[in-house]
């Protein structure tokens, strides 16, 4: 059972809104992302555009694979992790380590499940007993999309083998026919599409970004310094509003800034469509419950038996405060 009481009715910040409210003193926090991918555009752009500066915040970035950063978060060496809600996070929460999702990274993106044509033609039933690939194995959030696809013909996720591959190797695994279907992360979809061997299925949850990537706070920003957490959220949300609304990639300056922030070429930025960022996006708690349910069904993922409450996983104080 979680160690701390739900805290959603305690106000995180005195004043709401998106306008800068610099902290009284200069504050440094460490933020971890697994990689510099587009999902984190607001974060890196906020840094480049001085939005954190306006909050009197100094950000230190680290790039650790998801689970490697959790101990740092729990021990207040890291203040924020941007990550999908994984089995690791749920297990850590169930261990009583105080960490909660506080804001979705984005609302929607273009990552899809791709199914090899010979299987797609025969419907979801054909995947029964087959191997499919993603970057996390069955304990990642992309199985939501797989589940939706399989549910159409009453197949359960348990009935396929979900193999984990390094992101860069997923398209190859699919094209070479090592797996029947794969969740292809940006920007690999282009290669799969060009091969013509697989088709995309549109089964990831709509407005489901919160289930695929959230900002996660640890005890430091949740309990000890919520005002710092609020300042962080404000800066990120402001960046979404000011730079990343609508089809932001149609603005050459934004493309240029993003290329710099993400250390890519402008061509690469333009190669994929704009994601949907929304400073007012709400969590879809149902997705968290569904994920937890799926993982319990598959077994061997969650180290606890009594399901966690949504309030153990999500803390909406910070986004709520933005609306005031």
């Amino acid at each position, binding site marked *: 059972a979680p160690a701390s009481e739900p805290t959603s009715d305690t106000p995180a910040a005195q004043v709401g809104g998106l306008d800068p409210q610099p902290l009284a003193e200069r504050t440094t926090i460490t933020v971890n992302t697994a990689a510099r991918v587009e999902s984190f555009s607001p974060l890196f752009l906020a840094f480049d555009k001085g939005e954190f500066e306006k909050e009197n915040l100094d950000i230190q970035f680290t790039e650790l694979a998801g*689970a490697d950063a959790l101990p740092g978060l729990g021990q207040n060496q890291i203040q924020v992790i941007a990550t999908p809600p994984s*089995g690791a996070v749920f*297990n850590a929460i169930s261990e009583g380590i105080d960490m909660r999702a506080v804001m979705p990274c984005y609302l929607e993106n273009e990552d899809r499940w791709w199914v090899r044509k010979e299987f797609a033609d025969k419907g979801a039933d054909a995947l029964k007993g087959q191997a499919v690939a993603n970057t996390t*194995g069955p304990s990642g959030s992309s199985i939501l999309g797989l589940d939706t696809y399989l549910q159409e013909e009453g197949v359960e996720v348990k009935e396929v083998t979900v*193999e984990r*591959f390094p992101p860069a*190797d997923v398209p190859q695994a699919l094209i070479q026919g*090592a797996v029947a279907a794969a969740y292809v992360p940006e920007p690999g979809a282009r290669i799969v599409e060009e091969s013509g061997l697989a088709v995309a299925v549109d089964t990831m949850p709509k407005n489901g970004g919160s289930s695929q990537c959230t900002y996660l706070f640890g005890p430091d920003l949740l309990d000890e310094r919520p005002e710092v957490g609020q300042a962080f959220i404000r800066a990120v949300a402001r960046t979404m509003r000011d730079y990343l609304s609508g089809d932001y990639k149609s603005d050459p300056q934004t493309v240029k800034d993003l290329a710099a922030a993400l250390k890519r070429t402008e061509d690469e930025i333009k190669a994929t469509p704009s994601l949907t960022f929304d400073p007012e996006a709400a969590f879809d708690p149902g997705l968290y419950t569904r994920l937890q349910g799926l993982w319990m069904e598959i077994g061997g993922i*969650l*180290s606890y038996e009594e399901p966690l409450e949504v309030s153990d996983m999500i803390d909406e104080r910070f986004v709520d405060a933005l609306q005031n």
Partner: protein
Amino acid sequence: MTATQTGAYTLIRKNRVPLESRAARHRRRRRFEIALGIAVPAFLIGLWEVSAQLGWINSQFFPAPSASIIRGWEMVLEGRLTSDIADTSYRVLLGFFIGSTIGFVGGVAMGMSRIIRKALEPMLSAIYTVPKLAILPIFLTIFGFSDAPIIAIVSVTVFFYVWIYTMEAVVAIPKGYIDAASSFRVRGWAMFRHVILPASLPSVMVALRIAVGVALLVTIASEFIVGGSGVGYLIFNARSLFRLEEAYAGIVTAALLGVVMQGLITVIGHRVTPWVVRGDAKIGGL
């Protein structure tokens, strides 16, 4: 004792132990040494346990050894750990065997022939430091998604250790031994069998000891990436699910596997080099 001694003194050379009790003393010392070898890690593990129990270290992130041991035992009973150990051992040993065989043959060839050495050494030096995990896709493409790419990576990595060491060991063989054989017009296979092999064997066995450890490390690292089974997968999976007791149980399993495999190589090494006089010697009075 290195400065000039001043004043008269007497040195006495004598045996402090009666001859009859030498064997007994030897046995006692062996027992003591084994006990010491166990005591040191036991002490450290005990220290960790106490620290975890007393809260000196955060047992949420660094679970007490007892918890990991209990979890490990449960996994044995579930049959999971044993099957992972079997999978990993198979990959380690097959990869080690292939890699060290080719490495040894290559090392001998390059040690014995200057022209082969000069032709291949620069290229092999370069390939040696190619990050093998970065070219995993090549292996996957060639070998498909089975045990084979892991075994291939392990073989390649082991190859380099054994190759370099064997080559250097062969080059370092005292010329006197080569001469003694050459004077009987021995060359080629007979030279290898009678001189090169036994003369390099003590060094090669050390390299093999290192290499079997490397094979295990690389197998585990590969299992992190090409998941599915094995102790590496167990550790990675447990870590990425934040099941830390399980992860540490896996880590300890890896360590013990390493001890067993290294011990085996060491014992075999002593068996195949019976002529080597092993250091009962204290060096320089230490």
